[in-house]
C-alpha cells in the first residue's frame, strides 16, 4: 500500500454574487479529478503554472481542505503524520509571537509533553534546521526570509511526521538562500526518512529534489513520470512547452523555444475536451470534444496525440 493515495479528488470553490442574498453563480474547478499515490520515502514533485491547483491539492492532501468529491487515504494519522511547509516565510508566521512558541504549536495542540520537555524539543528542532537555539525568544521580524523558512520547517517536523507537503518552500527566496534551504530539506529527508510532496514552479529545483514529477494544468494532472524520464522524454505537449519555457542559466542554449499562444484559461469554465487544446500546437478536432485520460504505467500522460519519445514540439505550428 502507498503512504498516500489520492483518488479522483475534486475541489471546487463556489463563486458567490449578490449583496444581500449570496447566490452561487459559478465554481472554480481548482482541482478537478486528480489521482496519484505517494510512496514511503520518495519525493513527488508537482509543477504547473499559477492557479493550476497545486496549493489546493496540497491543502487537500494535508486535510486543510475538505474535498468536494473523491478520496484521500493515508497510511497513518493524517493530523499528526502529515505536515505542511508554506511558501510565504513572511506571511505564515504570526509577527507578535516568539519563534520558540511558534515552533511548539503542534506539540501544544497535540498535548505532547510538558512545557519544559517541549522547550527542549523546540531547541533540538531549531538546531536540527540550522537555527541558533538561543534565538528561542526572538520575534519573526528579526529573522531573514531563509531563516523564517527554517522556522516553518522546524514547526512542520515537531511531531515527527512521515509526510511533509512543501508548497513552494523556496520560491520567495534568493537563489543563494534557496540552495541552503533545499540542501536542508534533502538532509532532513535522509536523516529522518521523510516522504515529501514538493510543489514548485521552478522546474530545475523540482528536478533536483524529486524522484517522480507530476505536471498539472487547470486542475488536472497531465503527465506524471520518474523525474529524469519526464525531463528527457516528455510526452504531453504542455510538459514539453513548459520545459522549453523554463529559465536556464546557459547562454548557449538553443533559442528555438516553443512559444505558446495565450494565457492559462480560467478554471471557472475550463475548455471542453482536452483543457490544453486552445493553446496546444498539436491539437486536432478530437481534442476539442473528447477529454484524454491519464494512462500508462510508470510514465503516464493524458493526451490523444502524445509526442514520440525524443520528438520535439514544433513551435511553428503555434499561432496559426
Amino acid at each position, binding site marked *: 500500500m502507498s503512504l498516500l493515495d489520492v483518488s479522483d479528488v475534486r475541489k471546487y470553490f463556489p463563486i458567490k454574487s449578490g449583496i444581500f442574498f449570496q447566490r452561487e453563480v459559478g465554481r472554480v474547478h481548482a482541482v478537478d479529478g486528480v489521482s496519484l499515490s505517494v510512496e514511503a520515502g520518495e519525493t513527488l514533485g508537482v509543477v504547473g503554472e499559477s492557479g493550476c491547483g497545486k496549493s489546493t491539492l496540497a491543502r487537500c492532501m494535508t486535510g486543510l481542505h475538505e474535498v468536494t468529491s473523491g478520496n484521500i487515504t493515508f497510511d497513518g494519522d493524517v493530523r499528526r503524520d502529515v505536515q505542511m511547509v508554506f511558501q510565504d516565510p513572511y506571511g505564515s508566521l504570526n509577527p507578535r509571537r516568539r519563534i520558540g512558541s511558534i515552533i511548539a504549536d503542534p506539540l501544544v495542540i497535540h498535548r505532547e509533553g510538558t512545557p519544559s520537555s517541549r522547550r527542549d524539543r523546540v531547541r533540538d528542532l531549531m538546531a536540527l534546521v540550522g537555527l541558533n537555539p538561543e534565538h528561542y525568544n526572538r520575534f519573526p521580524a528579526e529573522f531573514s526570509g531563509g531563516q523564517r523558512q527554517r522556522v516553518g520547517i522546524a514547526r512542520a517536523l515537531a511531531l515527527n511526521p512521515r509526510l511533509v507537503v512543501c508548497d513552494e518552500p523556496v520560491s520567495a527566496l534568493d537563489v543563494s538562500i534557496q540552495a541552503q534551504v533545499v540542501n536542508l530539506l534533502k538532509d532532513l529527508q535522509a536523516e529522518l526518512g521523510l516522504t515529501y510532496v514538493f510543489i514548485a514552479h521552478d*522546474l530545475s529545483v523540482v528536478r533536483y529534489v524529486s524522484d517522480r514529477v507530476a505536471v498539472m494544468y487547470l486542475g488536472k494532472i497531465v503527465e506524471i513520470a520518474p523525474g529524469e524520464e519526464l525531463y528527457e522524454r516528455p510526452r504531453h505537449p504542455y510538459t514539453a512547452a513548459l520545459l522549453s519555457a523554463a529559465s536556464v*542559466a546557459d547562454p548557449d542554449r538553443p533559442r528555438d523555444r516553443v512559444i505558446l499562444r495565450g494565457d492559462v484559461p480560467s478554471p471557472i469554465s475550463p475548455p471542453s475536451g482536452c483543457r490544453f487544446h486552445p493553446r496546444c500546437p498539436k491539437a486536432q478536432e478530437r481534442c476539442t470534444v473528447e477529454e484524454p485520460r491519464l494512462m500508462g504505467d510508470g510514465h503516464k500522460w493524458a493526451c490523444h496525440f502524445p509526442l514520440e519519445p525524443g520528438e520535439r514540439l514544433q513551435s511553428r505550428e503555434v499561432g496559426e
Partner: protein
Amino acid sequence: MSLLEVSGLRVTFSTPDGDLQAVRGVSFEVEAGQTLGVVGESGSGKSVSVQALLGLIPGARVEGSALFDGEQLIGMPAEKLRRIRGARIGMIFQDPLSSLHPMYSVGRQIAEAILVHRKVSKDQAWSVARERLEQVGIPAVRARDYPHQFSGGMRQRVMIAMAMALDPELIIADEPTTALDATVRAQILELLGRLGCALIIITHDLGVIADMADQVMVMYAGKPVEKAERRALFRDPRHPYTRGLLNSLPKGKERLQPIEGRPPSLLSPPTGCSFHPRCPVRIPRCPIEEPPMLGPDDHPDACWLEVGR
C-alpha cells in the same frame, strides 16, 4: 560615446536608523541597440540605481553622473527629465497593474502618453496606440478594454506597448517577468528581444540574463562586483560572488553549493570587501581594504584575488 554613461552613482536614503546607502558607486554604459543585464539578489540596489537616474525617487540623495546621449540626467530640472522619460526612455515594471490606471482603457492610456509628448491629433495617437497593441500581440479591438479585463501577461504586454509608443532609444525593464508564469514569461522575453532599441533588463533570474543580455553587470550590496559580456560571465565567472550564484543553481542531480550566510544590511555594510563575511576564499586583506574594479576593461571584477586574471 555610449547612449547612457553612468559613473559613480550613489543613492542614500535617510531612515530613522541612520543613512542607508542603497547604491554605493555604480558605473556602467549602455550602447545604442544593446541589452545590459543587471543581476543581483533582492536588496542589492538594482531598482534604486535605475529609478534614481530617472528622477523617480524623490526622497533620496542622488550623487554621481548619468549622461544620456550627452545630457546630464542627475540634477536635471524635473520637467525636462519628465519629457526624456516618456519620449526617449521607456519603463517597464514588475507589476503592470500598479503602473496602469484602472479607470482608463489601455488604448486611451497609450494614446495620452503619445499626446503628452508629440504634437499629433487624437486620432493619430489612437491609431499609433492600436498599432503598438497589435505589435505586442493584443488585437486592436481590445484597445477600449480596461486593465482588469486583461491577464497578467497581457497587462505586461500593454506596458511594453506603452513603453514602445514613442520609439524610445532606451527601455528600462525592472523584473519584467518575475510575476509571470513560465510560458507567459517566454512570450514576454521573446517580445523584449525583438524591440531593437537599447534595453536595460534588471532581474534576479540568471536564466533571463543568459537569454537576453549582451553585457552583464552583477551587483552585490549596492555595488557592481563584476562586468562582462554574457558568454564570458557564464563561461568564466571571476568574482567569488558570481561564482557562488552560479553554483547555487541546480544542475541536474548534483548537490547544490549555496553561498553561506546572507546579504548584509546596507545600514552598516561590512568593512573592506562587502562580500567578505560570506566569501569562501577571503584573504586577510579583504575585511580591511575595499577592492576596486580590477582587470581587463571588457571583464573587470572587484576582488583582491587574481582569479582568472
